[in-house]
């Protein structure tokens, strides 16, 4: 197992990249998905059509193609250079926001009508009603979907390979090709993915139960 120890620093660097891109993607994706969901629900026809285009583009095209667009096409057009890490962060954020918008919108619709009416009846404005009543309930409902999103994003970061990114999978590939211990290398990498993703999923599960509204049976 000496070869693993030798490659540990590289694997660690790759792991850090994967973690950063995933976390940043999911959290910035969420920050972007909330206004997208609100815009889609309350923004009127034009806003909602623009949002629909955005979502269709990111959900309807391959992630690798999106990475290429941000890594090759856009920089060429603008005559600039963007490093693969920044491209990864931007592409994963935009991609994840497209998916998360759907989850949040669905959750908001499920709590919307009557809770909104009740909120208006005590004098809250529509914006206040969204902030204090609709969102707190929707975000609780959305945690399980969020957990899936995290899981799929964590694995998708391997696509960074195609633009020369050095993520966890890339580190595994380097190790495999340099040592010829293909089975052990990829097994070790798979194990890291597994442990990491399971830990985060478990944490989200605990969070879900912790913020669950007492006595209420919810189904998303």
């Amino acid at each position, binding site marked *: 197992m000496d070869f693993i120890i030798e490659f540990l620093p590289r694997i660690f660097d790759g792991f850090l990249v994967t973690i950063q891109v995933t976390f940043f993607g999911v959290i910035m994706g969420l920050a972007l998905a909330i206004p997208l969901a609100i815009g889609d629900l309350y923004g009127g026809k034009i806003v909602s059509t623009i949002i629909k285009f955005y979502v269709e583009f990111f959900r309807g095209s391959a992630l690798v193609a999106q990475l290429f667009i941000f890594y090759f096409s856009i920089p060429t057009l603008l005559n600039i250079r963007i490093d693969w890490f920044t491209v990864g962060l931007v592409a994963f954020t935009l991609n994840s926001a497209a998916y998360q918008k759907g989850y949040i919108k669905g959750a908001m619709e499920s*709590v919307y009508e*009557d*809770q909104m*009416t*009740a*909120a*208006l*009846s*005590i*004098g*809250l*404005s529509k914006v*206040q009603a969204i902030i*204090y*009543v609709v969102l*707190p*309930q929707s975000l*609780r409902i959305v945690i399980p979907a969020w957990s899936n999103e995290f899981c799929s994003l964590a694995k998708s970061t391997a696509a960074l390979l195609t633009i020369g990114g050095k993520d966890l999978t890339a580190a595994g590939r380097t190790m495999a090709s340099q040592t010829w211990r293909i089975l052990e290398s990829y097994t070790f990498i798979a194990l890291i993915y597994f442990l990491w993703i399971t830990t985060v999923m478990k944490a989200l599960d605990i969070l879900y139960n912790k913020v669950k*509204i*007492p*006595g*209420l*049976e919810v189904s998303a």
Partner: protein
Amino acid sequence: MADTVMECRNLWKIYEKITAVKDVSLEIKEGEIKLLFGPSGSGKSTLARCLALLTTPTKGDVFHRGECLTRPGVNLNKARARIGFVFQHIWLFHHLTALGNVELGLRRVLKLPKKEARERATKALREVKMEEWANHYPAQLSGGQQQRVGIARALAMDPYIIILDEPTSALDPELIGEVTDTLRALAKKGTTMFIISHEMQFAREVADEMIFFNQGMIVEEGPPERFFTKPSSDRAKRFMERLIKRTTKE
């Protein structure tokens, strides 16, 4: 003569396919209790929502304390803050405790400091005898308890009128009493109320005037005794007979 608290003139609400409210005019004076009843689908809820500014009437005007609130440019949020509304299906905020439900408007609409909001919310809960349940979530309460919190939520905002849309019709029969008792206590204190209800015994006790509503229109209005002894319209008479038969059977 007492002041007019709420009034509507020639009110219409037309949905795409249905005219739910047809040319309704009514008036409620300070301290008065009016009770509206009529068949399901006759437009009672729609009328109540128009009066509470929760939906915009198609035609006609709503006045609260002399001010026309159906003109453009009126701050509806501000106006709604002082109109209490109690819903048929209760609609408490699921993610907040009983206290949190009552406090929300005090904190975010009236912008009261934390301590003051808490005191006022607790007082409102005490008034509906729910103080001990302050820290329970809606899903942990019975229907009757939830509806009392709903009443406290409206009361806490110091409304000059409370509009109640069938506050007991979603409740199990054995839970109706605690809610009507709460309303009786409010009535005794002189609270101005517009109540939609089919609890005829309760109506007879608290209402100053009853209104029979059918197909979006006021068919008959008058003091409860007249409805119970000799309603002038046939339609009201038959409806009353059915209601009374139903309650005595139970």
